[in-house]
């Protein structure tokens, strides 16, 4: 879209402050016109006239009422009108004079009056500059100006009229109207009259000359715009102006300049002034449009204009016509009675534009709030009921438009508009045209962003070719086809125009058709005669013209990479022999072509895959061996590395292993190994063998790999050296020995801690003495052992050197298991002999022995103080010999607790310092005690065992059984013969009242148990007797008394045989202590410990006495009896013995002794 007019704009103060600049695009139906656009500050009262140079005198020019005192004055202002319109742009000088016609007229009137009064030329002043004389104000001026003279004074009124069109600048001499006064002052003397005549004649001559030159009629024409009509185009926010000018008498057409003023709200508020230049023809109905930034519905606008001839045919100076009357454009009248209006409706703008929105309220009292996408916006109040919002750089939100709405508070009134924001129309990119067949040109481009909106189409594309003048509307957004008519046109100049409702963008390209040849993709690509190393490629192309040659590029690709590239010039059929191919390899042949004469673009590519035939493997296998002895027989394990694809030349089907005995003549032994295996195992004897290994594919075997092995493993006792690992691997070097080596082999295991260890080897030439062994399997902290073999000329491998190293040494992760031995009160021994130094994450350089004790603060000699990670202090001893695996801790304190820890260290650090072991040193004399006590315990045990084994014997010897008196033969003898009144009483029949222990010394002295007198003081020379006394207090006479006599323990008693009865009265027990003086207490004390059978003893049989001796369990030694008087001790055991009349006692038979303790006196009681 091109703008029809170009304007320079002026800005009113209002427009500057509110709306920025205004634009005045032409209406589409008007052809472009160029016009100058002098502009003034529209908002100023003086309007644009002052800015445009139509100053105060200019206003008078239109009134054409200037004095004419003389030619000098005229000449002095000859160029003055030119200042009014000096070019297309307006000088921005401040307005010096108001435009108000009244003021202008008054100013002119004052000037005229002064001229009249002074009778001399007026000088210009700041406020009232001298009147400028336009051409038509001069007698010879024939410009079509409407001139009138409201002022007074000697003014020359020149009325020109164009007859039959405007004549070129020439004009007829002016006619003085009948009533016009002479410009000469009256009442002058004759010399002056003569001068006046001369002057008049000169002027008349000039006027005649002017009239002759211009050949224009004399009468001036009123060219003020007439019939000005203003209408509003709300959809596009245009003010449409239509007016006419009077018919042109002398000209078919005449270029005119129209100055237009637009006011807002009131006529004095001029917001825009601009000029419009056009050529007026015979039917001079003119149109012009002005686009308003502020929606026209929100304010009344006023328009007026004036005109001026701006044609070169009319000589300068040219004068403006009078202003037309103001015409009002009021869209508010057509609005309904809604309480609120919001404008513009459905406006389409480009993203980034500035938009002015206004609302108009019918009721000034309403409180109105407006929102843009939900967010309140605040505008500027233009009027009491009109406010406007300026949105700067609007952005695209959605295709359905940006919602802007206003609401009347407290009322359910909402009005809104939708602002459609279109994406910016981009210039087409990568615009180019090409042909494949010289019949059609295909132009393509990148359209960029789609600017389409709902109900609004996207941008369209038009292709225009300037040489042929043809234009087509493209069907697609990114391509267009142009038919090449004939071969005659070689050059093409295309212009692609992208256009949407808001504007257009264009891009051009100029080219020669033959330089834009883009051949079609080749076809029929085939491979033939494909062998292991060669293949022939054929293809065809679409011909381009009769004489065109195509340059085809043949690419050979392998694994995606271009291996070979060949250029072939062809007309129609292409063929090429590919060589130097690898057998059994997949390739791709790819062909594309371009114009050989003028390269423009490659055609599309056509490709074809093919696989070359197989060939025998080209390389021998890389073979290595491992010899070990299994059950005394050398076993050789052969390893080989699979052939690379490059050397295999096909699929390996199997491996052949041929074994030849070098020491003895024997047949060849051939083993076939499947292709999936990478080795085999052979069991040989002590002879030397030569082994050939080959790989087979469908085309044949590979060269043989030969290796010689022997049952003798050779010298394996080679000292191991250390090798340092780096990031690149292990740098291994060795010293040649024999000098006859044909090569070297370095052997190692990638995973030495696994089984199998993944044996690896590296073949090296004979002149190599070092290499770097690298492997992705190498890990820090793993010990790798390298063995360097020398390959002799007999292809026998001899161990040359051993190396061991770590890629990176690490600190030990575990501590050795330490055994404590030889623990004494002053030392103990630590040993960790099971600790293997070879399987550690670094070379063990030694050990640290840590010792700590709470008892000792100072370290022993050989130790130094160290601080553990937990900040605790201890003593550290360093062992620098990794093979020293014992350590003696000495100088220790007896009966002390020590904690120790043994940790190895490598170059990377020591092991963990966490698990200390406690050791307590024993007492200094404990070993002596052990030496004594232990034999004693053994002896005691022996004695106890012996006693146990000889218990019967011991019993018989030491404590024989007491005979049971009931079973004594004496009883029957007493009953039957001597004393029929005697009987044996049951114990239950006898109630014991007291037990009296009687010590029967020689003087029959009685001693009571528990007497206060010490027993030790008593003379124990006779056996003791125990008397049972009756409980009755009134017992006075001699009662029954039972006396137990222990003949077993009291030999003295037995020997004496004096177990007699001694009547004892209660009075005979003086000094008896409390507890035993009471019969009940005494019974209780004796109830569990003593056997008594008083119940069975008749009260009257006092002659029968039982005497029992108290036998303590604690003391079996009867010798000690005198020292330990019989006390009523619990758990004491007493032997019961039958009492017999004195003199009749006889020893009981031995066989009845066992009954003494178990004979029941009654069915419910036992006595012991």
């Amino acid at each position, binding site marked *: 879209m091109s703008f029809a007019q170009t304007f320079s704009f002026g800005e009113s103060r209002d427009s500057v402050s509110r709306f920025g600049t205004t634009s005045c695009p032409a209406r589409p139906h008007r052809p472009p016109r160029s016009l100058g656009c002098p502009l003034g500050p529209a908002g100023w009262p003086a309007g644009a006239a002052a800015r445009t140079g139509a100053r105060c005198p200019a206003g008078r020019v239109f009134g054409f009422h200037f004095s004419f005192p003389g030619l000098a004055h005229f000449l002095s202002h000859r160029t003055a009108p030119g200042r009014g319109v000096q070019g297309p742009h307006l000088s921005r000088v401040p307005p010096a004079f108001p435009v108000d016609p009244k003021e202008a007229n008054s100013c002119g009137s004052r000037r005229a009056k002064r001229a009249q009064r002074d009778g001399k030329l007026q000088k210009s002043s700041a406020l009232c500059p001298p009147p400028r004389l336009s051409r038509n104000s001069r007698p010879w001026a024939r410009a079509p100006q409407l001139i009138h003279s409201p002022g007074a004074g000697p003014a020359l009124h020149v009325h020109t009229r164009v007859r039959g069109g405007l004549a070129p600048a020439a004009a007829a001499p002016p006619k003085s109207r009948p009533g016009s006064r002479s410009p000469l002052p009256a009442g002058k003397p004759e010399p002056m009259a003569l001068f006046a005549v001369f002057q008049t004649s000169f002027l008349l001559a000039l006027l005649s000359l002017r009239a002759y030159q211009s050949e224009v009629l004399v009468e001036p024409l009123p060219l003020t715009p007439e019939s000005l009509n203003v209408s509003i185009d709300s959809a596009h926010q245009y003010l449409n102006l239509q007016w006419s000018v009077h018919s042109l008498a002398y000209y078919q057409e005449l270029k005119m300049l129209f100055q237009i003023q637009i006011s807002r709200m009131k006529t004095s508020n001029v917001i825009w002034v601009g000029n419009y230049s056009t050529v007026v023809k015979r039917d001079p109905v003119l149109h012009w449009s002005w686009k308003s930034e502020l929606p026209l519905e929100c304010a009344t606008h006023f328009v007026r204009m004036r005109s001026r001839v701006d044609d070169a045919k009319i000589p300068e100076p040219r004068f403006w016509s009078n202003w037309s009357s103001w015409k009002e454009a009021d869209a508010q009248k057509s609005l309904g009675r809604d309480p609120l209006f919001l404008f513009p409706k459905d406006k389409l703008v480009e993203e980034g534009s500035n938009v002015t929105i206004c609302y108009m309220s019918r009721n000034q009292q309403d409180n109105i709030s407006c929102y843009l996408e939900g967010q309140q916006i605040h505008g500027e109040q233009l009027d009491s009921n009109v406010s406007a919002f300026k949105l700067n750089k609007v952005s695209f939100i959605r295709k*359905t438009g940006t*919602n802007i709405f206003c609401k009347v508070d407290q009322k*359910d009134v*909402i009005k809104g508009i939708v602002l459609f924001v279109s994406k910016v129309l981009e210039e087409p990119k990568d615009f180019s045209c090409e042909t494949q067949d010289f019949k059609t040109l295909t132009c393509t481009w990148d359209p960029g962003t789609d600017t389409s909106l709902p*109900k609004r189409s996207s941008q369209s594309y038009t292709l225009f070719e300037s040489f042929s003048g043809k234009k087509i509307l493209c069907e697609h957004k990114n391509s267009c086809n142009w038919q090449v008519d004939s071969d005659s046109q070689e050059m093409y100049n295309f212009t692609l125009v992208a256009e949407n409702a808001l504007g257009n963008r264009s891009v051009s390209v100029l080219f020669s058709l033959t330089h834009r040849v883009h051949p079609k993709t080749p076809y029929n690509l085939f491979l033939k005669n494909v062998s292991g190393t060669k293949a022939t490629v054929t293809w065809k192309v679409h011909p381009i013209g009769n004489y065109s040659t195509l340059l085809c590029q043949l690419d050979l690709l392998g694994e995606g990479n271009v291996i070979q590239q060949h250029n072939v010039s062809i007309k129609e059929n292409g063929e090429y022999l590919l060589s130097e191919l690898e057998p059994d390899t997949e390739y791709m042949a790819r062909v594309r072509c371009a114009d050989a004469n003028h390269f423009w673009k490659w055609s599309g590519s056509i490709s074809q895959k093919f696989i070359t035939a197989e060939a025998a493997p080209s390389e021998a296998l890389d073979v290595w061996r491992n010899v070990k002895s299994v059950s005394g027989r050398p076993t050789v394990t052969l390893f080989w590395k699979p052939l690379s694809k490059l050397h295999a030349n096909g699929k390996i089907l199997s491996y052949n292993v041929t074994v030849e005995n070098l020491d003895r003549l024997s047949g060849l032994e051939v083993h076939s190994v499947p292709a999936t295996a990478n080795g085999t195992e052979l069991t040989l004897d002590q002879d030397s063998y030569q082994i050939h290994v080959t790989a087979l594919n469908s085309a044949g075997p590979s060269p043989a790999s030969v290796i010689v092995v022997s049952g003798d493993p050779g010298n394996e006792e080679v000292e191991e050296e250390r090798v340092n690992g780096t990031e690149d691997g292990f740098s291994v070097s060795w010293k040649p020995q024999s000098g006859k080596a044909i090569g070297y082999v370095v052997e190692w295991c990638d995973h030495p801690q696994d089984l199998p260890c993944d044996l690896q080897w590296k073949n090296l030439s004979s002149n190599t003495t070092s290499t770097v062994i690298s492997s992705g399997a190498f890990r820090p902290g793993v010990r790798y052992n390298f063995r360097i073999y020398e390959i002799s000329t007999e292809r026998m491998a001899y161990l040359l050197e051993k190396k061991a190293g770590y890629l990176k040494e690490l600190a030990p992760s575990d501590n050795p298991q330490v055994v404590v031995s030889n623990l004494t009160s002053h030392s103990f021994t630590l040993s960790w002999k099971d600790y293997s130094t070879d399987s550690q994450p670094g070379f063990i350089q030694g050990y640290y022995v840590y010792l700590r004790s709470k008892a000792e603060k100072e370290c022993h000699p050989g130790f130094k103080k160290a601080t553990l990670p937990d900040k605790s202090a201890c003593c550290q001893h360093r062992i620098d010999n990794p093979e020293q695996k014992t350590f003696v801790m000495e100088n220790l304190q007896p009966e002390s607790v020590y904690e120790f820890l043994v940790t190895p260290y490598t170059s990377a650090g020591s092991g963990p310092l966490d698990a200390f072991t406690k050791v307590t040193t024993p007492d200094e004399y404990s070993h002596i005690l052990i030496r004594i006590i232990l034999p004693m315990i053994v002896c005691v045990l022996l004695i106890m065992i012996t006693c146990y084994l000889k218990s019967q014997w011991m019993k018989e010897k030491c404590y024989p059984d007491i005979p049971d008196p009931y079973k004594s033969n004496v009883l029957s003898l007493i009953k039957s013969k001597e004393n029929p009144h005697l009987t044996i009483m049951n114990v239950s029949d006898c109630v014991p009242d007291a037990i009296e222990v009687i010590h029967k010394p020689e003087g029959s002295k009685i001693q009571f148990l528990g007497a206060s007198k010490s027993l030790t003081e008593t003379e124990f020379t006779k056996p003791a007797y125990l008397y049972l006394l009756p409980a009755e207090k009134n017992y006075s006479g001699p009662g029954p008394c039972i006396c137990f006599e222990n003949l077993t323990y009291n030999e003295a008693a037995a020997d004496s045989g004096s177990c007699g009865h001694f009547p004892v009265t209660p009075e005979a027990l003086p000094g008896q202590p409390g507890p035993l003086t009471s019969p009940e207490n005494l019974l209780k004390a004796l109830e569990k410990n003593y056997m008594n059978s008083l119940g069975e003893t008749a009260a009257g049989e006092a002659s029968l006495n039982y005497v029992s001796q108290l036998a303590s369990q604690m003391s079996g030694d009867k010798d000690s009896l005198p020292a330990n008087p019989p006390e009523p001790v619990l758990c004491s055991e007493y032997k019961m013995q039958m009492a017999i009349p004195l003199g009749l006692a006889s020893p009981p038979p031995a066989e009845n002794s066992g009954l003494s303790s178990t004979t029941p006196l009654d069915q419910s009681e036992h006595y012991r």
Partner: protein
Amino acid sequence: MRPQLVQRTLLSLVLGLLFLSTAATGKCSGKYHELLQQLQSQADLMQDTSTLLDPYIHFQGLDQAGLKEHCKESPGAFPSEDTLRGLSQRGFLRTLNATLGHVLHRLTALQQDLTIAQDQGRNIRGFRSNIHCMSQLLRGSSEVETAEPTQPGPEATLPPTPSSDTFQHKLQGCRFLRGYHRFMHSAGQVFKEWADSRSQSRSRRHRPPRALQRGARRMRPFRRDERLMPRGQLPR
């Protein structure tokens, strides 16, 4: 937005299958119960605002404070629920059919703005097909029923053409869709009452639905006082 889109897609799929079953057979089912249940289900689904209104509001940028509250159903644009309840069965169906016809017309205009309106248009056509079948079913039992005027549909009450003011057009479309969903909700309620009244009638009589066996031609006509209460030969 993604779950909402999936939900809408699933809903459209379900509705499409429902309508497809009717359209695929090409002829009306003579089973009143099935037809009523299908109509009820369709009405329930079509009253869901996520099928039309919510996407429309989002698409037009009306989901803003100050605008939502103006997206209210225009009074009288669609028959109210009480109005629908007051109609006889056939009158209700006629009104429903006519209203949906106008909705279809309006959706055609909305299709330019909302692509899913096209899917909803298919759904409405399927729904109208079922209405037609139900009308056929009822016609056999209502030959003597007096003619009942169709309630004014949206044609008489809705703005005849969208305003040239795009903003007003957006709001009118929003109000229209809200009314449409409300109307379908009311229609679903009416269909539910149909089903309830049928089950009550069956429980009162304790006899098998003979009409299901005899078909539509044996149906008894409805009377004015039997609105929404299918009796006699109507399947229960």
